[in-house]
């Protein structure tokens, strides 16, 4: 039965959606009052923030040796962890890909990745600092674990999306499984892997500046110490250097992708 003219509505009201928005608003107000997020508290915070900002500038680069040493260590942690993580992720991802492997191989591999991804790198770093002691080794191990969890998942998904037609053709030639992988599987995913690894290196670069806070090596330790001594001008110098490093990394990954035609 077609309704006519005036009682046809182009945009009928959706009362469920309106109710959901209202509930969300009520909860936000409740949560804010629960946390004593009042305008007065906010104003006091702003005042404090202004003082802090004033003390950040001008940045103090006089202790540049300390800065460079920490940054170099962070960079090395990031690169070594990314390389190790990539090397470990590749076989794990091949094992985990359900289009190439039987269930008894893919589930354990997936379980390893899930465990690696379960904790924030800083928590993993705390574990490794306790296990292997203070220093860069703990940072490298922590970020390697994080990389395996992340890269492994991305690589597995990329492998599961490949076309099986070349795989079928290469199998039909009597090729051993290892050659099927290197000729029919990896060429299809290699450029995506380059993208994943450069992305993970970028993430590791950021995380490597942080694991130092818990004693796992790198600039993070220096940053934390500067904070605790209220050397805010040195903090500013460190933060600016980190930003510069991340930007340089961005430029570098673009170049790397170009080289590999990703």
């Amino acid at each position, binding site marked *: 039965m077609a309704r006519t003219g005036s009682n046809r509505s182009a945009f009928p009201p959706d009362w469920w959606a309106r109710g959901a928005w209202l509930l969300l608003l009520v909860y936000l107000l409740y949560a804010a009052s629960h946390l004593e997020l009042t305008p007065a508290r906010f104003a006091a915070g702003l005042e404090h923030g202004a003082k802090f900002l004033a003390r950040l500038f001008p940045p103090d680069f006089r202790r540049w040796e300390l800065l460079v040493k920490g940054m170099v260590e962070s960079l090395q942690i990031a690169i070594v962890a990314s390389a190790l993580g990539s090397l470990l992720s590749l076989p794990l991802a091949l094992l985990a890909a359900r289009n190439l492997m039987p269930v008894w191989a893919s589930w354990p591999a997936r379980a390893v990745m899930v465990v690696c991804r379960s904790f924030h790198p800083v928590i993993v770093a705390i574990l490794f600092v306790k296990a292997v002691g203070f220093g860069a080794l703990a940072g490298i191990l922590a970020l390697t674990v994080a990389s395996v969890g992340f890269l492994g998942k991305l690589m597995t998904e990329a492998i599961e999306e490949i076309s099986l037609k070349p795989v079928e*053709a290469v199998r039909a*030639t*009597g*090729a*051993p499984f*290892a050659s*099927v992988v290197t*000729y029919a599987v990896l060429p299809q995913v290699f450029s995506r892997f380059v993208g994943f690894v450069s992305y993970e290196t970028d993430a590791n670069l950021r995380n490597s500046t942080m694991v130092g806070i818990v004693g796992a090596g790198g600039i993070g330790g220096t940053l934390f110490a500067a904070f605790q001594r209220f050397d805010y001008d040195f903090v500013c110098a460190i933060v600016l250097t980190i930003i510069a490093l991340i930007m340089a990394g961005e430029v570098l990954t673009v170049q790397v992708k170009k080289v590999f035609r990703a």
Partner: protein
Amino acid sequence: MSAALSVRGLVKEYVPGKPVLRGIDLDFEARGISAVIGPSGTGKSTLIRCINRLVEPTAGQVIFEGRDLVKLSRAELRSARRRIGMVFQEYNLVERLSVMENLLCGRLGYVSPLKAWLRRYPGGDIARAFELLDIVGLGDFAQARADSLSGGQRQRVGIARAMMQEPRLLLADEPTSSLDPKTSVEIMGLMQTLAQAHGFPVIVNIHNVELARRFADRIVGMTGGRVVYDGPPERITERHLKEIYGGEDWLE
């Protein structure tokens, strides 16, 4: 029997109780092109894939060079597959590899994975690849990436890859179905020339009955998972085609 390939009682059920192939018995001579025709979904592709066990047969025998392929272990099967070339409807090239690398895929059964990965192929294989590229008319395309080629060129690469195996049997699954009519004739002609020059039999699934009549020495008509016609192309009649494809309107 001196047949190059004998298929005996071949049955394939993807779902138990619903056979796609209902007991196929065929012998293929050591020479000539055999065209398998039939409607879509009648098991032509399954038949061809059961021969080299890309699809595992449910029952039956596939006897090639005196051995039942169905009973072979994985390693024995790989070594048997090295002598069976295969050409695909959608070419199944590795798009991101060069034409030369795609051709050398045909030698992967003979080269260790490490040497293959490092591209350390015997000089003879590489010389043969260049030779085959000239034969299929792609002499200038060795370094081109496979995804930069046209459909006809890709199928030529597909055929050259199969030829790299020095096959004793060539399986072709709808090799012309993705190509225009002129290119289709060229591709069939190329396979015919190569099969005659090197003396191996070809089993080709084909949709185009005219193309089958023109190039095949024998036509096998299938419908509903059974062989309903098996004989020379000139003896196939409209009555046979009606039985194979069903209906008759399309024949007019």
